[in-house]
């Protein structure tokens, strides 16, 4: 790309010069001079001219990718003429009826070359998708021609080859300029281009640069002085070591990482409420400060919940996975949201750890990279297998969630936690041996699973058809073998339970005819696996019919299995009045409904934990009115229905939580006509019930209404969009022992009756789950020990803050390949896996996030180390060795220094993924220490300094700018971590955009300390980030950002001139220099320079400031009111010992200093 733009530039320059082409030759000289420098430009012209061999990766592939791959690349959908040019074997493949695209060595015989050189606009390639010819540039054509001539050699894409430690360029290592291997590579590259390194920056520049780069803060004047006076050869190294040891180092590094991890304080969509995950932020700071090896750091974030741990940190780290957007918008369709969430996580993982734009394969095979659509969805599967609901109920936390112990309990907690982790690990190890253990068990002929007798089994809907519109009744005594599905189709295979599942749609009707038409003296049993719809607007205590044969038009004659506010109800009805007397509430009836929070969550979250944060200044009027309105609604007046109530109604005491889990719900009836003859079971265990009505006696239940799933006849009280599996009806009352076996054992018996070789993966899963849950004594023992520890952990963490974490589901991690990325267009179920063109997952491991984490940092992985050191480089030097830090794929930039990049990657890995080591290496290099001042020669040959012939200089990031303003003025509060704070923000910003009932509708600006913390602790609302941060290109953190933009807009100038934070900082800085600088203006100006620039202002600058001071003093002495107004800006009171006009004048001078290009530039 650089090359293409470069040439475009030259032609533009020449075009523009045309009117000025008075002096022939000169512009040409300029143009030629310009040709040399940039990394891209060189090779094209010079290689071809000099007849050197082309480098496929550097020279050829970018041209092919830019012009050819859209139609002749990896995506089969877009491929034209059956020609694929990104792979060697397909490029040379004979295509019947087509001339050979490439004949190695013979450009004139190669159709590829003929077409790109064609004069016939119909034949000319490339063409746009609209069929418009878009000729390549002559230089590009020349390269391709040369490449074919040289034999059209293909090489694998550079970034997918494992990096090898390049040997140092021998000559350069001897050069006195070279301080470490980085310099040798950089120097060698410079020499190629005839460039020379710059001298070392002076000490003041150096200390300011390195202190800002390593801590995000300025060096103090005392530090500068000490460093300047330290004449020892190790002075600089000591400085660097000292900086790396500061807590502010970890904060600053974390600040970058939070962009890479898309950290924010709200969940980003719709209400955009607060989400509690700041402990993750503090974990990142801790990790950098303790110099945690990067492999561990990465693994903890990807799969901390699956790793053995001695402290909570890995679990907190696993919150990384859940940092993305989330929603609870009213109409949200859970499957869509789930697909989007998995996709977001995958894209984030791809960008941060792989440096690839995998998201391009959401809809189709990647157009340039070899990432196929299947690769992409296989990767999403890793992130699709977490114990969570897709929507957040507009709460600050939603499962899985962790409670962090308060500091005083930390040690005790960690001890218990480490023990628990050990047990968990043993359990994991045990489960890893599932195949062997299951085989051993089955071989032993002990505890053979028993099927439930099929005696009088009238209906069995397995619902495993996985498509189609006919349901099979597999019961041996089936009256009807098949049932057609009505017009509104069900959804098949959205998730997997015993097998890919079945879900009713909102109007799906499953009519089961006259099955189940019984008299009250007939015993029968029915039920099956159900998963209730769990979605926004679906209450947690749902009501609705699961299975029925009941006619609501005939006083509810018939029977049903239903939910009433989450309690399971069984109704056997002869007749009911339309409006029943309210059931008598039994004292102590039922337990409070609890959502299930599996460990690591605390057993129970309080209402306070779950309720959204309070908005700043709540306006209650609107709500009150609404409530009032509700009350005003006229109540329908219905004539008293005198129908007697002849029925049995039994209700469970406990409510069944709607938590996104499958439950086996079943009841048996003995034909006694009495409520005592009804037993209700959940997951095979009899549930405690109470009798609401018991008046049926011998009255008939029979009705012409059909038996149905999900509704009562004709269309009443649906259980909304429930999933079902294995629904059964027996014409007898099953014994408790039989019901116990129904959920699993019956199916396991069926599976094991076949040879193992015929079991599917899903069946293996069911059998081993059954084995571990019921038969393995080690499993049982471990679990019971863990339960005890859980209770202790709960106790020890009482009152602590909550944070979102990951927690793997004990299921196989699947995803569906979605056509065009549409969530309903499921094409193929795939198991979690890594992209096919990269090394495979570690052998013998379950395909879960832990395997992915290990894979990410395995020595075979070609990307992680490269991508990470490149980002470090980008942080320090302002541009990555690969400029596209987020894209190491075919379309990404080629590295400017490939050997250096590989050397650094290997060094990083071999150093034990030592991050401080790498930052130190970069900071210690002569390359980094160069003066930023560029020579004419350098500017001409390499204006963007990609070859690093002078030191880095660029505008600081948003957070650094504000931090530096606070620090220089002495306002900065140094305190690490804790909940995010709300500094100054102009009023009204949130109200303008927020949902009125969001907890972020009002910004409650804090006061005191909170105003002066480092910017990384500022509350990050995704829908409206702090405006000063926004102005300076801070990202919304909707998505991963691995390099920020660096724009200069007038809005930025308005911030640093007028934002109260900056005005207050200017005043505080003025106070500081007035008090500490001395009596003379020169002394004070000098101190200001020392503070902000790390050096005395040079005379010219001092002169300007001095003049300005005189003007300001004059102005404010003449207008003391204005002076008063100015110094009163900000919350902190001005120092009353300083006369206001003086302070005001100095405030303006300080503001001038804070607004200098040099101040805001690193």
């Amino acid at each position, binding site marked *: *790309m650089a090359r293409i*733009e470069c040439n*475009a*530039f030259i032609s533009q*320059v020449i075009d523009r010069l045309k009117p*000025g082409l008075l002096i022939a030759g000169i512009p040409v000289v300029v143009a030629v001079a310009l040709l040399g420098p940039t990394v891209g430009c060189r090779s094209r012209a010079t290689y071809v001219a000099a007849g050197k061999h082309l480098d496929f990766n550097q020279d050829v592939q970018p041209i092919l990718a830019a012009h050819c791959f859209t139609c002749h690349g990896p995506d089969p959908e877009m491929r034209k003429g059956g020609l694929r040019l990104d792979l060697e074997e397909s490029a040379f493949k004979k295509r019947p009826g087509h001339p050979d695209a490439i004949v190695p060595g013979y450009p004139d015989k190669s159709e590829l070359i003929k077409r790109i050189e064609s004069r016939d606009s119909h034949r000319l390639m490339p063409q746009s998708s609209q069929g418009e010819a878009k000729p390549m540039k002559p230089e590009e054509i020349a390269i391709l021609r040369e490449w074919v001539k040289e034999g059209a050699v293909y090489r694998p894409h550079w970034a997918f080859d494992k990096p090898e430690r390049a040997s140092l360029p021998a000559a350069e290592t001897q050069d006195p300029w070279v301080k470490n291997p980085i310099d040798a590579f950089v120097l060698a590259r410079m020499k190629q281009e005839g460039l020379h390194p710059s001298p070392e920056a002076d000490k003041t520049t150096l200390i300011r640069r390195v202190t800002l780069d390593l801590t995000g803060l300025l060096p103090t004047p005392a530090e500068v002085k000490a460093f300047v006076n330290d004449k020892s050869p190790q002075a600089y190294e000591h400085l660097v070591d000292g900086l790396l040891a500061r807590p502010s180092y970890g904060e600053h590094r974390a600040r970058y990482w939070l962009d890479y991890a898309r950290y924010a304080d709200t969940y980003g969509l*719709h209400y*955009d409420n607060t989400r509690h995950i700041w402990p993750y932020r503090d974990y990142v700071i801790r990790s950098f400060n303790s110099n945690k090896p990067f492999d561990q750091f990465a693994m903890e974030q990807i799969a901390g919940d699956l790793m053995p741990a001695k402290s909570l940190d890995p679990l907190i780290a696993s919150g990384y996975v859940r940092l993305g957007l989330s*929603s609870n918008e*009213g*109409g*949200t*369709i*859970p499957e869509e949201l789930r697909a989007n969430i998995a996709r977001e996580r995958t894209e984030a993982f791809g960008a941060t750890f792989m440096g690839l734009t995998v998201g391009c394969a959401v809809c189709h095979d990647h157009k340039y990279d070899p990432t196929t659509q299947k690769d992409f969805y296989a990767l999403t599967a890793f992130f699709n297998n977490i114990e969570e609901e897709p929507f957040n109920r507009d709460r600050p936390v939603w499962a899985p969630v962790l409670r962090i112990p308060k500091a005083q309990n930390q040690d005790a907690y960690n001890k218990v936690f480490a023990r628990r982790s050990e047990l968990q690990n043993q359990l994991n190890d045990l489960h890893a041996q599932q195949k062997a253990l299951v085989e051993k068990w089955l071989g032993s002929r002990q505890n053979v699973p028993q099927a439930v007798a099929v005696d009088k089994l009238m209906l069995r809907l397995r619902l495993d058809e996985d498509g189609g519109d006919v349901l099979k009744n597999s019961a041996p005594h089936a009256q009807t073998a098949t049932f057609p599905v009505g*017009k*509104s*189709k069900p959804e098949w295979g959205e998730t997997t339970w015993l097998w890919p599942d079945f879900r009713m749609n*909102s109007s799906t009707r499953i009519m089961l005819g006259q099955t189940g038409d019984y008299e009250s003296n007939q015993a029968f049993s029915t039920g099956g696996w159900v998963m209730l*719809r769990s979605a*926004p607007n679906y209450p947690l205590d749902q009501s609705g019919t699961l299975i029925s044969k009941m006619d609501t038009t005939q006083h509810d004659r018939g029977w049903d299995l239903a939910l009433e506010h989450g309690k399971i109800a069984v109704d056997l009805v002869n007749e009911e009045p339309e409006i029943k007397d309210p059931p008598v509430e039994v004292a102590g009836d039922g337990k409070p409904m609890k959502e299930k929070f599996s460990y690591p969550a605390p057993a129970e979250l309080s209402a306070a934990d779950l309720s959204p944060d309070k908005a700043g200044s709540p*306006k209650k009027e609107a709500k009150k009115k609404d409530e009032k309105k509700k009350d005003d609604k006229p109540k329908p007046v219905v004539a008293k229905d005198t129908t007697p109530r002849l029925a049995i109604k039994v209700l469970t005491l406990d409510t069944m939580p709607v938590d996104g889990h499958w439950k086996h719900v079943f009841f048996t009836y003995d034909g006694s006509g009495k409520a005592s003859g009804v037993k209700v079971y959940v997951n095979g265990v009899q549930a405690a019930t109470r009798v609401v009505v018991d008046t049926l006696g011998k009255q008939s239940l029979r009705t012409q209404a059909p038996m149905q799933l999900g509704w009562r006849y004709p269309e009443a009280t*649906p259980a909304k*969009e429930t999933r079902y599996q294995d629904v059964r009806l027996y014409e007898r009352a099953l014994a408790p022992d039989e019901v116990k076996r129904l959920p699993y054992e019956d199916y396991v018996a069926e599976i094991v009756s076949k040879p193992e070789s015929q079991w599917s993966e899903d069946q293996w899963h069911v059998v081993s789950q059954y084995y571990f849950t019921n038969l393995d004594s080690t499993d049982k023992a471990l679990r019971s020990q863990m339960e005890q520890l859980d209770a202790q952990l709960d106790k020890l963490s009482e009152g602590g803050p909550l944070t979102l974490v990951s927690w793997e589901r004990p299921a196989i991690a699947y995803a569906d390949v979605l056509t065009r990325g549409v969530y309903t267009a499921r094409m193929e179920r795939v198991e979690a896996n890594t992209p096919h063109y990269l090394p495979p997952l570690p052998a013998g491991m379950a395909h879960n996030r832990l395997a992915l984490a290990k894979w990410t940092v395995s020595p075979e992985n070609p990307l992680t180390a490269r991508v990470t050191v490149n980002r470090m480089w980008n942080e320090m030097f302002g541009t990555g060795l690969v400029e596209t830090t987020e894209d190491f794929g*075919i*379309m*990404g930039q080629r590295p400017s220094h490939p050997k250096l990049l590989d050397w650094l990657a290997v060094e990083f890995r071999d150093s034990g993924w030592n991050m401080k080591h790498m930052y130190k290496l970069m900071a210690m290099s002569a390359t980094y220490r160069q003066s930023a001042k560029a020579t*004419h020669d350098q*500017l001409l040959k390499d*204006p*963007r300094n990609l070859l690093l012939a002078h030191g880095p200089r660029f505008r600081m990031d948003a957070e650094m700018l504000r931090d530096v303003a606070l620090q220089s003025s002495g306002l900065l509060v140094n305190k690490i971590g804790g909940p995010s704070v709300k500094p100054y923000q*102009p*009023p*009204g910003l949130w109200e303008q*955009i927020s949902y*009125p009932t969001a907890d972020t509708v009002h910004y409650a600006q804090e006061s005191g300390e909170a105003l002066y913390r480092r910017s990384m602790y500022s509350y990050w609302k995704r829908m409206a980030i702090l405006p*000063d941060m926004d*102005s300076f290109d801070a990202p*919304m953190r*909707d*998505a991963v950002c691995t*390099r920020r*933009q*660096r*724009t*200069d*807009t*007038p*809005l930025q*100038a*308005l*911030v640093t*001139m007028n934002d109260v934070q900056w005005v207050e900082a200017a005043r505080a800085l003025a106070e500081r220099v007035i008090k500490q600088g001395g009596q003379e203006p020169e002394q004070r100006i000098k101190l200001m320079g020392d503070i902000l620039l790390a050096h005395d202002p040079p005379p*010219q600058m001092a002169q*300007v400031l001095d003049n300005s001071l005189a003007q300001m003093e004059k*102005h*404010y002495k003449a207008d003391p009111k204005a002076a008063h*107004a*100015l110094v009163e*800006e900000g919350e902190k009171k001005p120092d009353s010992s300083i006369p206001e006009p003086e302070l005001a004048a100095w405030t303006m001078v300080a503001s001038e200093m804070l607004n200098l*290009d040099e101040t805001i530039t690193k």
Partner: protein
Amino acid sequence: MKQHPLCTDTEHAENVLELPIPAGLKQEWMALENRRRFLGRAGKVLGWAAMASLMGNRGASGDAHAADMPGAQGPPSPAELKLPHFAPKAKRAIYLFMSGAPPQIDLWDYKPNLAALYDKDLPDSVRGGQQLTGMTAGQARFPIAPSHWAFKRYGKTGTWVSDLLQNTGKLVDDLTIIKTLNTDAINHEPAIMLMNTGNMNPGKPCLGSWLSYGLGSMNDNLPTFMVLQTKVNPKENNQPVSSRLWSSGFLSSEYAGVGLRSGGDPVLFLTDPNGVDREVRRKMLDAVEQINRQTYEELGDPETNARIAQYEMAYRMQASVPELADLSKEPQSTWDLYGEDAKEPGSFAYNCLMARRMAERGVRFTQVYKRGWDVHTNVTGTLPILCQEVDRACYALVTDLKQRGLLDDTLVVWGGEFGRTVYSQGGLTADNYGRDHHPRCFTGWMAGGGARPGITYGETDEYSYNVAKDPVTVRDYNATILHCLGIDHNKLIYRSQGLDQKLTGPVPANVVQGLLA
């Protein structure tokens, strides 16, 4: 990283002044270079600020005379951008975004036959296998709720318009009404994003950013793309509008929309601190500029020059934005037209008036957000309030533009993110009902530059549920809007993540010829 096509030359920000070339040529180079720096590395800026002004009175580049040099022509000319791709009908656009989704059946899509079907079930065949929102998916019935309001015919075209829009109705002969807009999204957040950015997921540039990027600025001292929020009315159901809707996505953030606020500073941080008057600010800036110039001389970093320009531009904005927001010179006829509401900052009428003022001052794209249209319940209670807020103001804006001769080259677009269901959400009574989200058809209108006046485009079925004829997808709609501004949507591209990205996305889109004048 995110450069304008014109900015490609920034890869070579060499210091031309140092070149060993003759003085005459050097001057020409300087003129070119000044320009290039602002547009390039130095000036990833000022995309929305004309350069000419910067090189005028106060020569920010340090070469004030350079402006007089041959070749120095100020801002990037559209010719250099190869834009517009063809003669534009509209130079600028105003987008009145009705966030929350107005019910087309109650406003525009006249279905008199529905009255007879009151409380009848919507036939399954009409709904098909449509995936419904979580809000009505569980409803046992889908009873038809005919519109509560009468419709009348307006204009020479005799177009039917609801009694709720009696003022807008008077415009019909100037409007291009599209009844067959349809979208892929069924919930607000993704749907609004799709309308505004062409994609349901965050991260893509919005229409305004594309226009800023493609067409650049038309003025010296105001942003190219401005965003106006209408004050929230608590009686309405206000869906949020995130700042990502006017973000520049992968385009440089200089193309993001700049909010013009009704309270506090009209542009954030515009006002000087207490105790700092214009004279002090000028002096302060002079000092900063002098020192920055010294820095430039020492280090030669073009970025430093950009900084000088940036501060000058800020200074100009401090004067131009208050002038924009100062309505004291508006004649009485303005208030007669827009109504007294327009005097209340942040009202929709006020925003419409501001949109007109910005159009006059050369703002390229103005997006006005009006929230509150999410009428899931109590349609008869809420809709009149909403319409009262927008009806007269829309009429006033279009009329005002027309009277001032601005309508010919200003495109006005009105509409939401989807439609609403013909069936009632929740209980249906004789005098009230609710309407759920409906992506399959909804109504919007355009007026002015490029749009064919006095037509109604497309037909829906008798239930206002499905498109019967001439569907217009969001992609097509956006392609058509770009077309009116002289842009071929297939050519306004930006390479990101290795793909040629465009507003209309990868799925083919078509300019709807039937909508064009």
